Structures are given as C-alpha cells and as structure tokens.
C-alpha cells in the first residue's frame, strides 16, 4: 500500500461504500472488500474447528455437530458464494492492476473516452462467471 499523502480517505467508512461517479467497478470493490473480510473471519474460526481432527473421531464428530443445522448450511453457502465472487473478481483485479484489459493509451482528443469503458466487458464477464459458479456450488446445498 502506498502512503496516501495529501489525499486521505476523508470520508472514512462512508468512502468505502459509495460508488459515486466510478460506477460498476466501484461497487465490485466494496463487495470485494466485504467478501475478503468475511472469508478471513470464517477462516480464523475454520482453523479452530478443523483442528479438532487432531484429537480423533469423537472430537471431530462433536465439533461437526456444533456447526450443523439450516443456519450453518446457509452460512456455508454464503462462504462458497463469497469465495466464488472474491476469486474471479480477484483475477480481474490482478489483470487490470497489471495493465491488462484496459486498452492502449490514446491521445486525449475530443470526444474523450474513458478506460473504464474498456474494462467494463471484463467486469461483466467475470460477474457472470461468479454467478454460474455460485449456482453450481449451490446445487450441493439443496440435497
């Protein structure tokens, strides 16, 4: 992270949520942040729960028994959906941040074009992929 000298995030938490004139990708950013934090929270608990396998079958079965039921099933699906979104959007971010899929630099002549239009198809394609993944993963939860 680069120090944001002179351009602090003056809006604080509010500045994370609003899309403003940045549009679609800006909301994907908010969602990427939300899913990243959700995955991290899940992961920390997950390390604790799965550690129980070190103590053998009984410890494992009772740990798994503690996280059963419809509430946890829905939660697990959300973890999967968060993973699907965060993963494919992460690929998009890595591509865009390394300079792919944003088009070549052009002369700034009127009518001006913005590179946001260049990267929009990638963003939309990636969201369709995330939706398909989440649906495919959801099939297992309906059993």
């Amino acid at each position, binding site marked *: 992270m680069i120090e944001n000298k002179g351009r602090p995030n003056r809006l604080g938490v509010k500045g994370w949520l609003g899309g403003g004139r940045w549009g679609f990708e800006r909301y994907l950013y908010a969602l990427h942040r939300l899913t990243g934090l959700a995955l991290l929270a899940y992961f920390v608990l997950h390390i604790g729960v799965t550690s129980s*396998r070190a103590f053998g079958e009984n410890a494992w079965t009772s740990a798994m028994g503690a996280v059963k039921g419809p509430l946890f099933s829905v939660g697990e699906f959300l973890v999967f959906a968060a993973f699907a979104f965060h993963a494919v959007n992460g690929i998009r971010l890595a591509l865009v941040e390394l300079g792919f899929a944003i088009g070549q630099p052009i002369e700034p002549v009127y009518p001006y074009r913005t590179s946001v239009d260049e990267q929009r198809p990638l963003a939309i394609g990636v969201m369709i992929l995330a939706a398909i993944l989440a649906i495919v993963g959801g099939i297992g939860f309906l059993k």
Partner: protein
Amino acid sequence: MRDQRLWTWHIGAGAVILVLLGLHMTVMHLDAIVRVFNPAPGEPVDWANVVARGKSVFFLVTYVLLLGTALFHGFYGLRNILFELNPGAPAKKAMNGLFLVAGLVLFAIGTWAAWAGFTVARSA
C-alpha cells in the same frame, strides 16, 4: 518499497490460494457434481473422508501451504483496509505487530493440527 513488495506478494498469494482453495472448494462443495478425494459414501466432512484425505502427504503439504498464504493474504488485506483510515504512527505499529503475531499463532495451531491429523489418520 517495502509496501510495494508486500503488495506484490499479496497478489501472488491470491494466485496460489486460487489454485489450492479452488481444489478445497471442489472437494468440499462440488461433490454433487465432481466427487474427488471423497472415497467413502456420505458427506465430504464425514470422519471416514477426513481420515482418507488426512493420510495423504499431498493434503498435509497443501493445507499448510494454503494456511500460510491465506493467513498472509487475509491479514495483510485487513491491515491495508485499516491503514486507509489514516491511523497515527503508533497505531500502525501496533496493528503491524498484532496481525503478525495473530497470523503466526494461527499458522502454528493449523500446522500442528495438520501434522497431528496426519498421524491420527495414519494410525486409524
């Protein structure tokens, strides 16, 4: 410089996680469609399947790898989010220390569990 380098690792870790967690999610959640590494009937999280995977050196190694990369990626991401709120220098220092220690402790617990799970599965 240090931040740019760590950020590059953050992206690199994302790529590693993509592969390993992609496999993990396939094993755990796409079992209705592609059933891999779940030899016993029933749920992927049933003890018999946990033991079957636990016997394998491949899962031992990749779990520890996933543990490390995901902890770094997650906590470094959290650190960046909090740094955007422009905390003072002492708060930044405290967060760096806190997340480093938390990550290392969780890594130690997870690695111990992976190893102990491996020995339990081998003797089962």
